[in-house]
């Protein structure tokens, strides 16, 4: 399978936490990349470039969502009885998914780029247009937040 297709989709899914949106934006990212090909410089990594496009599209979509809340909540991953739910492989994964949904975008984005796309701090900084130091801090805090959310979830679960 095309490695870029999966990578871009994974990025979008991680950022947006919504499958339909992720598909749309993956599609848009490729079209946008194609349309802007004349701006692409060969000495840059192609992956960085298309990830940047995807990341920007996702950020814009999230802003839009915030400013235009819909009556019908979008189908989120995990939770609820929505048929578009992803069935977690195990209970722990489901908790991670729920927690990810709750994470603010600013923390979730670098986390996804690091642990799904396996990018370096420098590349993440390039894609999100933030300094490398900030990337490290955010990831550190994001992991802590995630841990906190998961453990809180466990406690709630256990106390029923």
């Amino acid at each position, binding site marked *: 399978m095309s490695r*870029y297709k999966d990578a871009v989709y994974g990025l979008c899914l991680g950022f947006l936490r919504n499958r339909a949106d992720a598909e749309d934006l993956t599609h848009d990212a490729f079209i946008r990349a194609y349309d802007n090909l004349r701006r692409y410089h060969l000495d840059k990594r192609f992956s960085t470039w298309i990830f940047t496009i995807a990341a920007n599209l996702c950020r814009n979509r999230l802003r839009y969502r915030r400013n235009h809340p819909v009556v019908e909540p979008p189908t989120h991953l995990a939770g609820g009885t929505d048929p578009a739910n992803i069935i977690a492989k195990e209970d722990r994964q489901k908790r991670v998914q729920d927690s990810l949904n709750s994470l603010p975008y600013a923390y979730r984005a670098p986390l996804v780029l690091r642990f799904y796309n396996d990018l370096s701090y420098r590349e993440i900084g390039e894609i999100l247009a933030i300094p490398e130091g900030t990337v490290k801090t955010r990831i550190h805090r994001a992991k802590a937040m995630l841990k906190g959310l998961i453990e809180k979830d466990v406690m709630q679960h256990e106390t029923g």
Partner: protein
Amino acid sequence: MRPDEIEEVLRDTLRHEVAEATPRLADLEERIVAELGDRLPRLRFVDWMRSLVASTQSGRVGQLAVLGATAAVFLIVGMVITQDRSGGSILTPTFAPTVASHTSQEVLFVVPALDAERVAVVGDFNAWEETPLSDENEDGIWTASIPLDPGRYEYAFVIDGRWWGQDPSADEYVRTFGQYSSVRYVGGGGDGV
């Protein structure tokens, strides 16, 4: 939960989510390819005169500019190459280096072959024996810069053993032996266009 445990579970979760979407992604890829295909200029051998894509420019800077402007099929080519990978033979790779002369120009060959392991160019300038392209930063864009004296050169790419004859940066396409190959004119001052 230990910090590194978090990382592991996070990775697994994210990968699992994407893996779940695999069948839908195949459709997505088709949609993208179809839409990009609509945007492709129609290049058919019968319309050979209208198929003259771009004039050549000398010098590497000029080449890159031409590339940006006319190689708008990069992604579609990359995806088409990735999609259609059945069969194909492995040609014996040999390197036939071209020696630069004082009239020769560096001509840039670029191939977007996002999942390929080996990309080479064959043509008049190397007696149709493979000259490898390289992808130093492993981003799927393969390049080679070959010194060519002014003239007309027919060539094609071999991507993981498969013949790929329609270089978007070509000046012309030729179809012989049932397959396409590309042509570039390397100017020597009088471009004649």
